[in-house]
């Protein structure tokens, strides 16, 4: 690991020194997921053809928290070897000081993109990163099983619980002993924060911490939401869901062992792969709504962006690269080849995009319900806030204290942290 890093750093610095003359040599760092790096390389080839700048990819593990830890260290040390970083939607406020303001460079094309995405990358008056693609989860459901048992697609969590329970019991009675009703991301990590924020928000329970900084999580609707979620574990969801991330949930789902799943769009293409038991037998819908006042369907806003390091020796070329990767042309190729959701609104009506990824039409509705995680009001403390939140939720799900008790303590902890 360390040796690798040293090698990468050495190589990067050598290329930097060698290429400073005219056409710049840049380094871009990106996490590796599926065929993401291959796609990035093909984009960089086009970029090189157009501009003459040569770009090297520095690959990173797919875990976002591993990436974040490493980037933090590099940026803290003023590392000049990396010019462009691929950043998660929630990092902007935490790393804002170390990235270049892209507002001016981006001004021309800014109104092509979803305003909420641009807003999520704006800290104060500074545009920290430009969007590459966006992400919003959906409810995956088994068309064949719903049809077989004469059920509708659920629109509330109660309906989901009942439908899942009934289908699961009926299927098990028929000998399909492996089947479960619902799988989601219940492990204690950022993914649980996303899931639980959706539950709370869909019950009208706010967004943990509101945009103005008030801690709103300790309320009756949030308690009701977590109680509902806790009732799934061990009934319609396996006990092991408490250790599931995206991939574990997809594993159960793709083997045909779940009626419903909450997941990000990347699972759509994979679930339609030839080795998937659910191929052609599923569809997606917005996540269910809660109950009570202000109940609605909500989906946590995800997505990735490109930011330019303040310590880059070739800032102009690096900004050029970031803009290229977030351009409508690049996003279109990304949507077609990677099934990533574009942030350029017009691409949702683009025939070629819809032909390659027909599900994207369905996502436009999901995307309208997207709720941001409270990274903007919590600034540098976001990761700790998220960790406190997912711990409280995980405790509740595993029966370690009631929802009301855990949220009460969470409120005090958040208050201490943010005071």
């Amino acid at each position, binding site marked *: 690991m360390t040796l690798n890093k040293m090698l990468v750093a050495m190589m990067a610095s050598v290329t930097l020194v060698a290429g400073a003359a005219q056409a710049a040599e840049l380094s871009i760092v990106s996490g590796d997921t599926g065929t993401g790096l291959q796609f990035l390389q093909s984009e960089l080839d086009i970029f090189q053809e157009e501009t003459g700048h040569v770009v090297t990819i520095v690959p990173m593990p797919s875990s976002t928290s591993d990436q*974040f830890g490493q980037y933090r260290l590099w940026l803290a040390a003023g590392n000049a070897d990396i010019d462009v970083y691929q950043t998660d939607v929630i990092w902007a406020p935490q790393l804002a000081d170390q990235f270049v303001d892209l507002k001016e460079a981006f001004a021309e094309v800014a109104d092509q993109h979803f305003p909420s995405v641009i807003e999520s990358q704006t800290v104060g008056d500074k545009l920290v990163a430009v969007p590459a693609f966006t992400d919003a989860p959906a409810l995956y459901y088994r068309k064949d099983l719903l049809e077989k048992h004469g059920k509708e697609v659920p629109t509330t969590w109660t309906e989901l619980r009942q439908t899942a329970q009934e289908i699961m019991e009926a299927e098990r009675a028929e000998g399909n002993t492996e089947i479960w009703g619902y799988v989601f991301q*219940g492990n204690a990590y950022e993914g649980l924060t996303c899931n639980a924020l959706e539950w709370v928000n869909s019950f009208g329970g706010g967004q943990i911490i509101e945009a103005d900084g008030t801690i709103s999580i300790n309320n009756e609707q949030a308690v009701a939401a977590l109680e509902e979620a806790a009732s799934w574990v061990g009934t319609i969801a396996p*006990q092991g869901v*408490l250790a599931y991330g995206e991939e574990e949930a997809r594993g159960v789902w793709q*083997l045909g062992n779940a009626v419903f799943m909450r997941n990000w769009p990347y699972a759509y293409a994979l679930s339609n792969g030839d080795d998937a038991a659910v191929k052609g037998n599923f569809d997606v819908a917005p996540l269910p709504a809660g109950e009570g006042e202000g109940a609605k369907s909500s989906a946590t806003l995800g997505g990735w962006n490109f930011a330019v390091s303040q310590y880059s020796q070739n800032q102009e070329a690096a900004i050029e690269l970031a803009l290229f990767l977030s351009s409508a042309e690049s996003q279109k190729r990304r949507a077609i080849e990677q099934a990533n959701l574009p942030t350029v609104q017009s691409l949702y009506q683009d025939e070629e995009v819809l032909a390659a990824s027909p599900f994207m039409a369905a996502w436009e509705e999901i995307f309208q319900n997207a709720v941001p995680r409270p990274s903007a009001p919590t600034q540098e403390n976001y*990761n700790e806030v998220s*960790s406190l939140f997912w*711990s409280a939720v995980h405790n509740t799900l595993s029966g370690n204290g009631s929802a009301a008790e855990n949220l009460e303590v969470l409120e005090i902890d958040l208050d201490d942290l943010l005071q």
Partner: protein
Amino acid sequence: MTSEAIGAPTAAAQPRQKSELMQQRVRAARLFLLPMMIALAVVAGWPLARSIYFSFTDATLNDLYGAEWIGFGNYLQIRVLESGRTIYRGVLADPAWWNAVWNTVRFAFWSVLWETILGMIVALVLNAEFKGRGIVRAAILIPWAIPTIVSARMWSWMLNDQFGILNDLGMRLGLLNAPVAWTASPDTAMLAVLVVDIWKTTPFMALLILAGLQMIPKDIYEAAEIDGVHPVKQFFRITLPLVRPALMVAIIFRVLDALRIFDLIYVLTPNSAATKTMSVISQENLFQFNNFAEGSAQSTLLFLLIAIFTILYIWLGKVNFDGGDR
């Protein structure tokens, strides 16, 4: 025993005053040690000093060089609120930290205990003469040779509740009536981590003990045999006392390793409060959260704890790193 009897008079016969040659050799030895000391100071001493320094400042990763000295604030601060209530803040008043300390100690105790017992058994078996001993000795080292990250990832799939092989086996053999989510449930998370660590490190323990066993002269056992000493008594009266020096060194290596356990837990159960150890919690504060100074304080405390333990162990256990008993 025999070597002591022979060795003692020769040592006493040596002249007290060091000869010219002797002094020269000591000087040469110091010179040869110098590069290593410099390397150690650069790669171990400086970072250690730096992180101890940071633990007394308000450093954050966004502003490392603008850090200001705040004394013991990261360790413990006592604040009196306007209402007259006194509150305690800092690592030493943080229940999450003490939970991590307790997890670490618990982990170190149980893992080293089982690794010692199992390692001893394996070493005794391998010390016996049998066909193919060389191959078995090499094969048993495999778990230890696999990088921890790889074996931890491997185990996390094996322990998975839906497609893990352990649950599958347990169900087929009728040992489990429902799949268990080993790493997810707070009740079994520590057990899962312990099992993987014991699986991984027992070979290391066995190897060190085996080296100790092979130093024991065979004729002692022959003599015991002739006197009709029971094998169990042979083990406790001959093997154990004679292998003790090697065993003590092996145990201290393992305890030091276990006290700073990080990679295994980071991969298997990164966010479970039931298994979070001191290293994991300090990494979290250093790089994930915006608490670089607090994380430094936690690393410093971890360093102190390990240092104190090592000193006590060497002192109380009379460990002699030359390999002989004192």
